[in-house]
């Protein structure tokens, strides 16, 4: 494969998209659109940080990139760049910008395109030490740990596993890139909707359930939820 046109990875509160600094802008953005369209459910609603490196990006190009993302329900939250031209363009579009000095891990940048292997050391994950309230959406290309509740109306989408150390009442999607071995764990499992890979279940209606830690996984082509003791 020639140089990667784009690399996408989950960061704290959204996705980091690094665009090739040398390939043609048109082919880079086409590829980006294609990648997002292929996995709409995964990307939907994410806040995007774009890393443009040394490439000078004029205002009209940046503005079309922003539009490309917005048309797909993503918001461009930060533009990282080493080029003054690019940062100038970003500022004139009222975008937040920063110089690349952040501790990127260049060695690992290519790993994101490989399927996530939960056993593999080095799989990225994020931890949230707070309750996710209605309207909040978390995206990760790795695992997600929420140290708090996931309230109704909040959403967690992860390529890997989702662990909720608290009450899970929102929507959760584990294995969002297709990994059927992904699991969802919660201390109190009562999600509005639970998805693993391409399977979807809702919580059975009912009054008071016994509250105990449970794990959801795929077995025999369906999602099963069971207690772990």
């Amino acid at each position: 494969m020639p140089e990667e046109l784009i690399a996408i990875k989950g960061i704290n509160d959204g996705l980091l998209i690094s665009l090739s600094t040398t390939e043609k802008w048109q082919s880079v953005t086409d590829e980006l659109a294609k990648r997002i369209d292929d996995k709409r459910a995964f990307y939907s609603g994410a806040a995007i940080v774009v890393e443009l490196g040394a490439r000078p990006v004029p205002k009209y190009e940046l503005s079309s990139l922003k539009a490309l993302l917005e048309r797909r329900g993503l918001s461009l939250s930060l533009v990282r760049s080493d080029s003054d031209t690019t940062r100038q363009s970003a500022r004139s579009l009222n975008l937040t910008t920063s110089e690349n000095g952040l501790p990127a891990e260049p060695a690992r940048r290519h790993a994101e395109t490989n399927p996530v292997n939960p056993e593999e050391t080095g799989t990225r994950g994020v931890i949230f030490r707070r309750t996710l309230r209605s309207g909040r959406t978390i995206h990760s290309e790795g695992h997600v740990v929420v140290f708090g509740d996931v309230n109704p109306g909040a959403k967690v989408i992860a390529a890997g596993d989702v662990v909720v150390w608290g009450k899970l009442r929102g929507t959760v999607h584990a294995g969002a890139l297709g990994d059927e071995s992904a699991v969802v764990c919660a201390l109190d499992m009562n999600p509005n909707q639970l998805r693993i890979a391409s399977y979807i279940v809702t919580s059975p209606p009912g009054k008071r359930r016994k509250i105990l830690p449970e794990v959801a996984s795929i077995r025999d082509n369906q999602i099963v939820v069971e207690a772990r003791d």
Partner: protein
Amino acid sequence: MENEERSRGDARVITVSSGKGGVGKTTATANLGISLASLGKRVVVIDADIGLRNLDIIMGLENRIVYDLVDVVEGRSKLRQAMIKHKKFDDLFLIPAAQTRDKMAISPEDMVRVTDELREDFDYILIDSPAGIERGFRNALEPADEVLIVTNPEVSAVRDADRIVGLIEAAEKGPGKLIINRLKTELVRKGEMLSSDDVYDILGLAIIGIIPEDEMVLSASNSGIPVTLNMNSQAGMAFGNVARRIMGEDVPFMNLDGNPGILRRFLRLFDGR
């Protein structure tokens, strides 16, 4: 919450919001304003619901409006000219919303300017936020020192309250405190309405007031004499209690659902956990 007397130039700006409409924000704002004034505090209530003003009606001041908040912001009137003194309390003022404009007529910065000008001369500035999460809410939130979230014990109101709390946290205005309005004891007992415990379970916020459903609220709102002036009203008393808690007093909760466990839980919240 601290108990010491506030010095001049140190008003607390308290925004009353909810997310969902119709849960009783305006009623709560009017009643808290009146309760605080009746406790000897200097109070301004601001109606930030531009285009859908209501607070003036509930406070019985509609026919005295000459200038409004938008007139002040756009320089057609001085702040003092737009402040309507309450009929009964000399230290209670209303700044009404404009009825003919919309939320875009003012900006969050305008609200900060207006409240900063008032801080010096008052103890409390209450802002009645419009429903929703858009500009109107941003306007009301920007100057806030703290936020009260009004909700009803029903799923949709609690969901919207949760969303609002997320936005308040993101704006670093603290998680806010909760007023549960229109609790119907009878329905809770039958298991048909969320209890205050259920609401707490989802939102995880300190509860500063539980207001029972009370028919007197409706007639009071229509007549422009807020219910808290009526000593026979349970809701009126509950609003009075909220006002005293805002002032830092340790007021026990009325026992509404006959469940001592809930009561203990709230008291614990107010002990600072």
